[in-house]
């Protein structure tokens, strides 16, 4: 039995939080490795606490272990202290399930949910004892795969991964398993041949079969190399048509140590058609596929009983949109067999949050309430197509405070297209009004405002937008801080938090980057730049130095507006969305023209349904009650506000670049 446990237990006493590395979760599988089975190591390239709750990874873990021709175990990025000990002791990366060396698996499959984890991918591959560059891997080295939302632009990692998998993983992992198991059964062979076979699976992109061409310092395109007949011109994403067929995870893992989102999680629907233009998740996961309410109830009650959790989160991109949400919540809270249960609803739209929902979820312990208005003015929200009115926010906040909440968190983005300082400062105005609403119900209500810098993402209407510079984002955060200081009394109860603008710059770099960023990521990793999404480890200088060595700049790669016909690094990949739909939506954004939710209105032919012959799966033909959502929206109200895509060149800040005009209008 190839377990490293006896070696590991001698050194785990030396590291912080050793429980990260022991496995022992309820729901864990001890798989029976055998030569005919494709052995998957599912990796989350961040700490155990962050990675364990990931539902995507847990779903694939169960689906694979149910197959006779596959086994799956899990691993997470070892914290820097353990990585050091492993290198010192000559020990490799291991699975937490049976502490099996990572190299003994056939496939290392990484979940990429954020850009800043890319250096951790290289770290994990290196700790596994595998060459980090695909071209240098031997025929019998494991395959390195990536999936998850960032896999929609895997180009920065193109030279480091054997394949990227687009879209829902439930079905495609089975098809990959069949290819790999057959390959093993036949005794293996040249790695290049395995690459070709993988490329025949829909949804699987094999970068080694594609070539990126550049001219005048810009990407011209990514196309199949002539000899790769298996490689399609455009790799399409995978979509499961009906969530009811996939009631996973059935045995959610219950860790023995504390993790984030330490609760039962039940996915109530996948996809979102609200059409928020900044939101990549909402674009690439279309169409909406609701889980049947009965199945949700069963998964909740069985899950609570099995896990012993006293909190359940009903997860989705916008949970209040779930048909019959109030009933599901009410039944969960009323289910005596589950004891005192609290229900948390992440991702709440304020226009769908009603007193009814508030009253139901507060029956047990109250969890925090977070709303995401995203922008501080109606005009700005029309630009981003998050069509919630201020009245909706105040009504939702009133629902919360009147039902006994004392603290509300509001999420905002700054650095959005066409944003003016007035829009930015509108954030604080909304927060102040929320506190005022709260005072009518309780003493000392508190509103935490969390501001993140906007990062344009592939396959969104904003993919053409030149991201705000680090300096500009810093200035905007400064505006908010100064305003709070100017009137401390007026803003009593308002707390401000913000995401580091330096980290936002690098997220933007990787989000829309091309293959030229591979050596940059590698350089940063070699310089020790792991765990870059952790503020104590993030180091902007490592990135800017590495960029300079490659002759690249943030101005060119991140801050520049892109033209209509400019090649993107992800043009050979598809989330089903027509490029002209996205372009039109981008033009509409600049005109502050909103677009209604297509789940309840006629189709705009974005491509996600029609292209794949699938449809929305929605239990209710009408929008859920509450707020201004549905047909009552006045989508043109802000239309007469003159809007031009321009940043405000500030003569006192010579380093603020003036963006190039957007072409093709």
């Amino acid at each position: 039995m190839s377990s490293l446990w006896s070696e590991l237990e001698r050194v785990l006493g030396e590291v912080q939080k050793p429980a990260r590395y022991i496995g022992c979760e309820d729901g864990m599988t001890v798989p029976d490795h055998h030569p005919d089975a494709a052995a998957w190591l599912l990796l989350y390239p961040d700490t155990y606490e962050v990675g364990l709750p990931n539902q995507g990874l847990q779903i694939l873990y169960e689906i694979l272990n149910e197959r006779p021709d596959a086994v799956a175990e899990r691993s997470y990025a070892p914290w820097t202290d353990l990585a050091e000990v492993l290198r010192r002791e000559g020990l490799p990366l291991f699975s937490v399930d049976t502490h099996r060396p990572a190299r003994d698996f056939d496939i290392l499959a990484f979940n990429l949910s954020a850009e800043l984890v890319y250096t951790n991918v290289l770290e994990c591959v290196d700790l596994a004892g595998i060459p980090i560059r695909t071209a240098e891997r031997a025929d019998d080295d494991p395959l390195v795969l990536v999936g998850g939302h960032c896999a929609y632009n895997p180009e920065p990692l193109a030279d480091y991964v054997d394949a990227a998998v687009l879209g829902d993983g439930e079905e495609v992992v089975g098809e990959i398993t069949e290819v790999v198991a057959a390959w093993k059964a036949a005794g293996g062979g040249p790695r290049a041949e395995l690459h070709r076979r993988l490329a025949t699976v829909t949804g699987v992109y094999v970068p080694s079969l594609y070539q990126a061409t550049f001219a005048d310092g810009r990407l011209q395109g990514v196309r199949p190399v002539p000899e790769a007949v298996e490689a399609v011109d455009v790799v399409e994403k995978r979509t499961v048509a009906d969530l009811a067929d996939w009631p996973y995870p059935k045995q959610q893992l219950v860790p023995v140590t504390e993790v984030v989102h330490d609760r039962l999680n039940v996915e109530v629907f996948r996809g979102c058609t609200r059409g928020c233009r900044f939101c990549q998740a909402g674009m690439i996961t279309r169409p909406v596929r609701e889980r049947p309410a009965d199945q949700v109830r069963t998964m909740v009650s069985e899950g609570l009983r099995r896990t012993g959790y006293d909190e359940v989160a009903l997860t989705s991109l916008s949970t209040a949109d779930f048909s019959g949400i109030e009933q599901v919540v009410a039944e969960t809270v009323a289910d005596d067999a589950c004891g005192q249960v609290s229900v948390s609803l992440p991702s709440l739209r304020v226009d769908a949050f009603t007193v009814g929902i508030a009253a139901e979820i507060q029956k047990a312990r109250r969890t925090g309430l977070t709303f995401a208005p995203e922008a501080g003015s109606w005009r700005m929200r029309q630009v981003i197509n998050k069509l919630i009115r201020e009245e909706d926010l105040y009504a939702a906040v009133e629902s919360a405070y009147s039902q006994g909440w004392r603290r509300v968190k509001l999420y905002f983005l700054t650095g959005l297209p066409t944003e003016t300082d007035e829009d930015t400062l509108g954030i604080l105005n909304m927060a102040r009004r929320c506190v005022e609403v709260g005072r009518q119900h309780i003493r000392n209500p508190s509103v935490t405002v969390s501001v993140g810098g906007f990062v344009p993402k592939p396959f969104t209407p904003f993919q053409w937008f030149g991201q705000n510079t680090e300096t500009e984002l810093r200035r905007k955060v400064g505006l908010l801080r100064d305003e709070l200081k100017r009137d401390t009394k007026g803003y009593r109860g308002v707390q401000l938090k913000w995401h580091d603008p330096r980290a936002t710059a690098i997220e933007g770099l990787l989000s829309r980057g091309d293959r030229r960023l591979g050596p940059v990521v590698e350089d940063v990793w070699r310089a020790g730049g792991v765990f870059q999404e952790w503020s104590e480890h993030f180091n902007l200088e490592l990135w800017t130095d590495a960029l300079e060595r490659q002759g690249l700049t943030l101005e060119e790669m991140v801050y520049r507006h892109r033209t209509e016909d400019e090649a993107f690094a992800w043009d050979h990949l598809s989330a089903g969305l027509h490029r002209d739909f996205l372009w039109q939506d981008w033009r509409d954004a600049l005109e502050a023209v909103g677009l209604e939710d297509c789940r309840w209105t006629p189709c705009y032919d974005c491509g996600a349904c029609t292209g794949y012959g699938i449809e929305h799966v929605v239990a209710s033909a009408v929008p859920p009650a509450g707020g201004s959502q549905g047909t009552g929206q006045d989508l043109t109200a802000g239309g007469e506000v003159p809007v031009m895509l321009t940043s405000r060149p500030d003569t006192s800040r010579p380093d603020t670049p003036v963006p190039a005009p957007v072409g093709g209008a």
Partner: protein
Amino acid sequence: MRIRIRFHKKGKIRFTSHRDVARIWERAFRRAGIAVAYSQGFSPRQKLSFGLALSTGHESEAEFLDVDVVDDRFCDEEAWADDRGVALGAELVESLSAVLPVGIDVVVVAPIVKGDSLQQAVVACTWSMDVDDIDRADAEAWVADVLSRAEIVVERERKGKPVIEDLRPHVHALDVTGTTETGVRLLADLGTQPRALRPSELLTAVDPPLTARTVCRMNQWTSQGADREEPLTAPVSPAPPARMPA
């Protein structure tokens, strides 16, 4: 009804923290369907009280937990007292064992009268420590050195301020009880009041400093002397008392 539970913490699970163990128990009661009293207030929690914290990474054969059970099945005082008590205890042990992770094993349960908290009641712990790379003679000499000292003064930091402390009064007993493949096994009785002396502190307090590969808490004691008692005695006989200092 307050019930005291004695359990082991061994194997991989020893790398969980004291807090982690508390959470594992909270979930275990819910999963086993055993109703437990909750605290009042904004954020109700199960009323569980644990004894002295066990350092992360140490094993134990003597962990204790007091819980206020409100489940009718386990709240019949008369049943606990008469010949039904054994079956009742067995039922509780069985239902908890089914939902606890490997390595956390319930040894014995019993109803108790409400009194001192475990933390206040315990005065000393017996520790078994496997120390590598030392032979028996050197280990005996090290033990003799510790026991012969009138005081073992250490300086440590407490709340950011240096504190001088004499560890010697906390060393109630210390002995080499055997050899392992790679070293020796020490057994120590260390005082816990007003502050528990940790095994690692003792091992590094005198030269040469020793490091234990494994440490296991064998007993917690609520009284001193020949007829000393534990908060709840395991059905098997406890470890023999370590040699008392001369």
